[in-house]
């Protein structure tokens, strides 16, 4: 398995793969978003307890799930890039970051809009919300590090250190509602007893989660291609400068 993946360390081959996947991820995004929004806003009931605000779940929870899984993907990519010295892995993490940051931001904002009518507050410093905010800052810090260095390989290494160390936050976020007393309620889907959500409400949730995932793949393909080409551009510009310098 590891041997096969190394083939995609070759940027050209990697881009051929992403080009092939792109129309599928785009089509899937449109399909899942359309059906997801239909079920989320129209073809699903209100909640016995939370009324129509339950519909916020369909944009809040998928965003939160993406914020966590994108960061995990970034940490793994960065580790691969560091260990095997594959620039494509580093650039994959770099390409994913803005999307992950957007999802994290949406989780926080939609969460606040859900918290005010249901809890009675937009924000509390409980373990779940605080660790999600920390995740957002980790995303911002990661993106800032890439901007801080002219030498992109130094940037890649520093960024990798940040994202890997920050990965400890991921299990903290997931288990925060179990380890500590929090205002945020425990998990409703990934529980030992199975989902605690009625199927009529679970369906739009899973459709929107699928839509957000397909959307991420689509955005990722666009961004990673830009990163790979940008790296090529930098190298060619550097060569051009060097050639001019040699001619004196």
């Amino acid at each position: 398995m590891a041997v096969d993946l190394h083939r995609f360390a070759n940027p050209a081959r990697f881009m051929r793969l992403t080009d092939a996947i792109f129309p599928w991820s785009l089509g899937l995004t449109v399909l899942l978003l359309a059906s997801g929004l239909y079920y989320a806003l129209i073809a699903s009931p209100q909640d016995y307890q939370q009324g129509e605000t339950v519909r916020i779940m369909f944009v809040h929870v998928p965003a939160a799930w993406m914020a966590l899984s994108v960061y995990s993907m970034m940490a793994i990519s960065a580790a691969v890039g560091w260990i095997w010295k594959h620039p494509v892995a580093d650039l994959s993490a770099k390409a994913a970051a803005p999307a992950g940051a957007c999802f994290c931001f949406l989780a926080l904002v939609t969460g606040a809009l859900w918290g005010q009518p249901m809890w009675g507050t937009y924000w509390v410093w409980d373990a779940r919300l605080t660790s999600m905010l920390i995740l957002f800052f980790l995303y911002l810090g990661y993106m800032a590090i890439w901007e801080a260095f002219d030498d992109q390989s130094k940037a890649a290494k520093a960024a990798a250190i940040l994202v890997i160390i920050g990965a400890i936050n991921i299990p903290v976020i997931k288990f925060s509602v179990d380890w500590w007393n929090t205002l945020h309620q425990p998990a409703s889907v990934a529980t030992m007893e199975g989902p605690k959500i009625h199927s009529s409400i679970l369906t739009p949730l899973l459709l929107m989660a699928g839509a957000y995932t397909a959307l991420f793949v689509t955005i990722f393909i666009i961004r990673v291609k830009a990163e790979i080409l940008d790296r090529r551009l930098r190298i060619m510009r550097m060569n051009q400068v060097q050639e001019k310098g040699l001619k004196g």
Partner: protein
Amino acid sequence: MTRKRRRLYFVFAAVAVLGLAATLVLMSFEDSLVFFRSPSDLAEKPMPAGRNFRLGGLVAEGSVVKDGVEIRFVVTDMAENVPVRFRGLIPDLFREGQGVVAEGQLDEQGVFVASNVLAKHDENYMPPEVAESLKKAGHWEPKSEQEEAN
């Protein structure tokens, strides 16, 4: 701005972001990792009057009394009870049998004077009809994990 200065600027920004994150961690870990105390926690380790903290549990059945501007109720965790009084806005979800987190302090009589009352809901989601039929069939036990853990 020279390139070196710009890099320094951004590195400082990244460090500041990390520092802010670490500060937030420490802030949320104030009061030794406790966001709210349950009535049992309070019975075990009493809080002195005048110390701000959060009290969490369920609104005891039959305990809610509206007295003009003030509302009085009892917070319970099925083992211990704490009386509460509050003047202010109550969230939509507040009702008997529902989870609640109140911010405030104990007065000299051991009554918790709340400055803020938040509703806490469980992790179950279902349409109203399903909830109704569960209640009618006598299967209505939406105990959240946290209550079971206590």
